[in-house]
C-alpha cells in the first residue's frame, strides 16, 4: 500500500512537471494566415522539432511587423520572418537578401549549404538570438506598369513602393532617382495594382496570390533579372531552446530548399511579360547593383563578412567573373 502511494505520488509529480513545462511560442508570418503554405509547413516543422526537445505552439501572423515586435518583446520564443525584417536580429545572416548579391539559385543553394554547416554556427548567433533556418522565398524582380520604362534612366521620377524598414531600398531609390512610396508587405501590391506606384520589387510567389498581373496588365513588364534573393529566416531566443536545437533546425531547413525552390519556380513559370533586360544591359545593371552594395556595406547597412562569403560563392561558381580578381567585397 505504501509502495503504491509512493508510485502514485511520483507519477503525479511527473505529470505535474510535464504539464507545467511551457511550450515555446513560434510566431509565423504568413500573409495568408492559417491558410498559407508557410503556416502549414511550420506545423510540420513543429512536429519534427519535438525530436530535438522543443514543444512548439505555432501561431500565425498576417502582419510581419507585429510578429517581429512580439518576438523582440519575448512574447514569441521563435519567429519566422523575411530576411529583410530579420536583419535587425542578426545583421550577418540578414544581409543575404542584399541587392544583386546572389545572381541565381545555384549560388543561393551553395550559400545556404555553407551556412548550414556546423562550422558556420557561430555566424548564426547574435546576442540572445540565433538563426535556426533559412529558406528561399525566391528572387525579387522589378514589376513595372509601363514597359516604356525600359532602362534605369527612365525610372527616374517614377514612384516605387519600398519597405520603409529597409534602408537598402531607400538608398537604392535615391541612387536611381526613383520616388519612394513607403509601404509594407501587406499593402505594396494594392498600391501597384491601383496605380499609386509605377514599380515594385517582389518575388514570383506574390504574383498570383497578390494579383500583381493586374498591375502589370497588358502594358507592363516584369524584368527577369534578380535584384535580390529573398529568404525566410527562423529566429530563436536561444535560452528558450535546448543546446544543439539550432543546428538540427538549420539542417532541417536546408532539406526544405528543393521543395521551396520548386514552388518558387512554378510561380515564376506563371509570370506573363517576363523578359530579361535588353541585350547588353544585364552586365551594366549587375555592375550598378554591385557598386550600390559596396557603398551600402561601407555605410553599415549590409554586413561586410556576409558580403565576403557571398562573393566567394559567386566566384566559386563563376571564377571568370571580373570581380573575382579584386578584393572590394
Amino acid at each position: 500500500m505504501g509502495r503504491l502511494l509512493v508510485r502514485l505520488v511520483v507519477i503525479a509529480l511527473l505529470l505535474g512537471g510535464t504539464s507545467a513545462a511551457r511550450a515555446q511560442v513560434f510566431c509565423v508570418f504568413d500573409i495568408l494566415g492559417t491558410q498559407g503554405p508557410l503556416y502549414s509547413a511550420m506545423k510540420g516543422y513543429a512536429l519534427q522539432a519535438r525530436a530535438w526537445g522543443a514543444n512548439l505552439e505555432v501561431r500565425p501572423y498576417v502582419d510581419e511587423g507585429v510578429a517581429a515586435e512580439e518576438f523582440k518583446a519575448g512574447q514569441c520564443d521563435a519567429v519566422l520572418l523575411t530576411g529583410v525584417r530579420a536583419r535587425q536580429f542578426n545583421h550577418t545572416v540578414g544581409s543575404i537578401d542584399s541587392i544583386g548579391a546572389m545572381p541565381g539559385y545555384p549560388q543561393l543553394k551553395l550559400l545556404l549549404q555553407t551556412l548550414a554547416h556546423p562550422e558556420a554556427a557561430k555566424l548564426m548567433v547574435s546576442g540572445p538570438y540565433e538563426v535556426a533556418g533559412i529558406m528561399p522565398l525566391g528572387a525579387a524582380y522589378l514589376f513595372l506598369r509601363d514597359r516604356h520604362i525600359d532602362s534605369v534612366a527612365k525610372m527616374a521620377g517614377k514612384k516605387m513602393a519600398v519597405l520603409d524598414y529597409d534602408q537598402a531600398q531607400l538608398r537604392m531609390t535615391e541612387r536611381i532617382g526613383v520616388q519612394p512610396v513607403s509601404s509594407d508587405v501587406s499593402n505594396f501590391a494594392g498600391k501597384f495594382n491601383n496605380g499609386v506606384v509605377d514599380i515594385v520589387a517582389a518575388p514570383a510567389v506574390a504574383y498570383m496570390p497578390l494579383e500583381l498581373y493586374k498591375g502589370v496588365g497588358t502594358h507592363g513588364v516584369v524584368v527577369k533579372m534578380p535584384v535580390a534573393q529573398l529568404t525566410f529566416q527562423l529566429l530563436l531566443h536561444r535560452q528558450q531552446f535546448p543546446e544543439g536545437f539550432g543546428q538540427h533546425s538549420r539542417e532541417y531547413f536546408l532539406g526544405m530548399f528543393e521543395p521551396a525552390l520548386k514552388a518558387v519556380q512554378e510561380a515564376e513559370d506563371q509570370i506573363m511579360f517576363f523578359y530579361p533586360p535588353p541585350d547588353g544591359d544585364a552586365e551594366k545593371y549587375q555592375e550598378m547593383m554591385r557598386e550600390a552594395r559596396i557603398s551600402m556595406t561601407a555605410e553599415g547597412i549590409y554586413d561586410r563578412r556576409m558580403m565576403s562569403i557571398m562573393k566567394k560563392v559567386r566566384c566559386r561558381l563563376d571564377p571568370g567573373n571580373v570581380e573575382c580578381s579584386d578584393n572590394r567585397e
Partner: protein
Amino acid sequence: MWNAVTTVSKAMTAINMTAIKSVLLLAALCGGMSAQADPAPDQSAALHFLDDFYAALKQHDASALSGMIAGTAPVVVLFDDGDGEQTFTLSKAEYLQQVRAVWHFASDESYSVKDISYHAAASAGAPAVVSLVDSESRTILDNPSGQRNRMEISLAATQGRIMIVAIKTHTVIW
C-alpha cells in the same frame, strides 16, 4: 646493314600507321557529319513543319512545341514599342515560358499567318529560313490585346527531323 633495314622498316611502319590513322580519322569525321547534319529542309517540308508549329500553338500543346525547337535555339525579339526599339534574346525555355503564361491568361485567341516566304539554305550546312508575318489577337484580363510579329524562322534537319534553330522577330504589342 641490319640496323639500316630495321630503321627503314620502322619508318615504313610509322608511315603506314600514320596513313591508316588519317584514313580512320577522316572516315570517322565523315560518318559523324552525315549523322549530325542533314540538308536543310526543302520548301514543302518547311511549310508542312510550319503548319504543325502553328497547330501546336493553337492547341496549347507545350510538349509538341518544345519538341520542335532545338535546345540551343536563340529567340531574338526586336521589340518595337513605338518609342524606340530594343532587342531581347530569350532562351528556348524563356520563350516557351512566355507562350505558356500567355495561354494561361488569354481567351478568344486567334493566329493569322501571311506573307510566307521560303529561303533555301545559303550554303551547305546552313539552315533554311522561312519569313512570315504572324498576327495574334487575344483577350487578356478583359482587355483586347495582340501582337504582330515579322518573323524569320531558321530550320535545320538532323537525322531526318526538322527543328527550329533560331527565331528572329520584329514584334509590336498592343
